């Protein structure tokens, strides 16, 4: 039986970890994900999990140890944020190319320069090309649910890729929310056992992991990652469907909110979707045909489905909680526009940079955005990119 509870996003992730009971967790504290290894340590101290917990001396070693453990054939997990994830970047690529189904609880936080501990997506967006599956959560419930699904997606033989389950630092990780928690047995039954075919500790067959690959082979390895990432689309859908069947909460590659007849729409990821939905509801009451798309799966990127959902939309605000400093906006801006190009042409777009370093986004900001999009439809030129909710 599931139960209703209230807890923070970090707690929700910790409950999922306790239920999954992974073999190895290697983690290093960094705000705002620190609570996760703390919970793990407490669970272990209380005998609630069998996990080998490696309290490493850096995030670089956390990911290195996860790679070692996963290559040795067990479930390996970590949690991190911001600079911690940046310190892992090199190894994120190694984990993906070694095709290791490591699962990371990513608690999004701004990257330093200047130092800041609050939410934005610059950390995981920096890792967007590392070959990890990236799933973003709006709230504690989604963080919990996505975490319960993560291993099955990562470990599927057609995928075998690492997965990061992202939630917004503090906004989601620390705010107490209502949540439905599944009973341990159902959660465990859903996640299942992991018995990989090839690993380092197989006495019947030695294995070499991480060989030097010259030009004659490197590209085939990359091609296999490309195929695995594409295979992940179906696996994510299948696992999400099974989750809906068993747990009653349903998830797609993205959530389309009041998009049926929307003329203006915004696309974003993470916790700000709640505020955005409120703004959409208010506009709808006034007769404005506004809609919102909350992207859940950023890697693999659901380009075709997005082109379909935005067909009929006249102006779209693509909202990035991260600036890529291309001079043209953030990563979502670039990828969503590329997805629309040639498929849903004619949609006016503006890439809004918002919420950096924990800057609050308000219903009023959304009203401004939807207003500008409407003006764009009426012929007023839309800028390619602009910051919103900023001085000056």
């Amino acid at each position: 039986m599931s139960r209703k509870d209230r807890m923070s996003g970090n707690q929700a992730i910790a409950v999922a970890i306790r239920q999954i009971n992974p073999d190895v967790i290697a983690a290093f504290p960094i705000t705002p994900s620190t609570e996760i290894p703390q919970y793990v340590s407490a669970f272990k101290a209380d005998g609630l999990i069998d996990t080998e917990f490696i309290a490493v001396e850096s995030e670089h070693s956390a990911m290195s140890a996860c790679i070692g453990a996963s290559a040795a054939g067990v479930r390996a997990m970590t949690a991190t944020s911001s600079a911690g994830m940046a310190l892992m970047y090199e190894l994120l690529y190694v984990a993906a190319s070694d095709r290791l189904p490591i699962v990371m609880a990513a608690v999004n936080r701004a990257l330093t320069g200047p130092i800041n501990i609050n939410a934005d997506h610059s950390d995981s967006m920096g890792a967007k090309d590392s070959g990890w599956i990236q799933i973003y959560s709006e709230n504690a419930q989604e963080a919990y649910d996505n975490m319960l699904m993560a291993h099955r997606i990562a470990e599927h033989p057609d995928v075998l890729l690492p997965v990061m389950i992202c939630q917004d630092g503090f906004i989601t990780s620390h705010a107490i929310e209502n949540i439905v928690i599944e009973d341990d047995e159902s959660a465990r039954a859903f996640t299942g056992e992991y018995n990989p075919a090839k690993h380092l500790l197989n006495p019947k067959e030695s294995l070499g992991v991480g060989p030097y690959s010259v030009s004659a082979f490197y590209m085939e390895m990359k091609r296999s990652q490309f195929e695995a990432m594409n295979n992940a689309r179906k696996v994510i859908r299948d696992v999400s469907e099974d989750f809906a069947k068993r747990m009653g909460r349903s998830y797609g590659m993205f959530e389309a909110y009041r998009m049926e007849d929307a003329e203006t729409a915004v696309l974003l990821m993470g916790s700000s979707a709640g505020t955005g939905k409120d703004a959409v509801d208010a506009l709808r009451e006034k007769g404005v045909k506004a809609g919102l798309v909350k992207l859940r799966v950023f890697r693999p990127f659901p380009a075709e489905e997005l082109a379909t959902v935005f067909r009929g939309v006249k102006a779209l605000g693509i909202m990035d909680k991260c600036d890529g400093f291309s001079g043209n906006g953030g990563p979502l801006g670039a990828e969503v526009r590329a997805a629309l190009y040639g498929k849903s042409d004619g949609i006016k777009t503006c890439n809004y940079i918002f919420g950096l370093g924990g800057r609050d986004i308000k219903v009023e900001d959304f009203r401004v955005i939807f207003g500008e999009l409407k003006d764009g439809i009426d012929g007023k030129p839309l800028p390619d990119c602009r910051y919103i909710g900023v001085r000056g």
Partner: protein
Amino acid sequence: MSFTAYTLKHISDRQERLAPGHRMCAGCGSTVGVRAVLRALKPEDRAVITSATSCLEVSSCTYPYTSWEDSFIHTAFENAAATTSGVEAAYIAKKKKGKLDETYKFITFGGDGGTYDIGFQSLSGAMERGTDMVYVCYDNEAYMNTGIQRSSSTPLYADTTTSAVGAKSNGKPQFKKDLTKIMAAHHIPYVAQTTYIGNFKDIHQKAETAIYTEGPAFLNILAPCPRGWRYDESNLTDICKAAVDSCVWPLFEVIDGEWVLNYEPKKKLPVKEYLAMQGRFKHLFKPENEHLIDEIQDGVDCRWEELRSLCGIG
């Protein structure tokens, strides 16, 4: 701990665990060290080998080939010890759950670049956490894989491509870092320093002790590089012997905190003779540079006396 009496012939009958056909240079010290260490594994025991990015790694596990009979993992340059931490944790988890009957040992190899420098934090962390593993540094005193750049292990006044000798430079201006001593300061059960001497008894026994001591162990092996040190390939063991006889590279162990000197030359070989065997010190033999050799000799003498004192001698 009791081991059977050592004979090179007997021990050489063991199956090689590093197959021939790898791409390391002739006269390279590193594979000699790897084979010597792996010979200390009981034939019935299995191992997972980790290697830092290095000459050894790129030359012994080049897709789709591997020279390693045992399972092998390489992830990056600076994290070999942390990688092994993860493998060992997985082993413990599997053992606890009754999913594995066989005994595995965890042996990690890194060059001095991957050990003294970029991988030092990862090594220190794994040792402090008590990972049941042996970390073997094959110390060739520079970054050889990228083309002979200085490391913190490069000795004073050695010529490397980033401590170049010229009109205004006599090579690396700093002394070599004393890593073995730093590892001893981690108070791990076993730390030893060795190289290729005589019938390889010293390295064999140290490797055996390191592998079969519970908990973390660190083995530092002087492993000359013919390209970087500039010597004739056939002179490898002569150079190692000179390093030991001149007290540049003393043979010692630290067993549960007790320092033991394994070899004291009856008559110390002047450091000059060791240096003269290697092209990287050629510039020191110009008449005007004699004082630089004296400086090296003083440094070696000072460290040797310090070591003797730690070992309770003199």
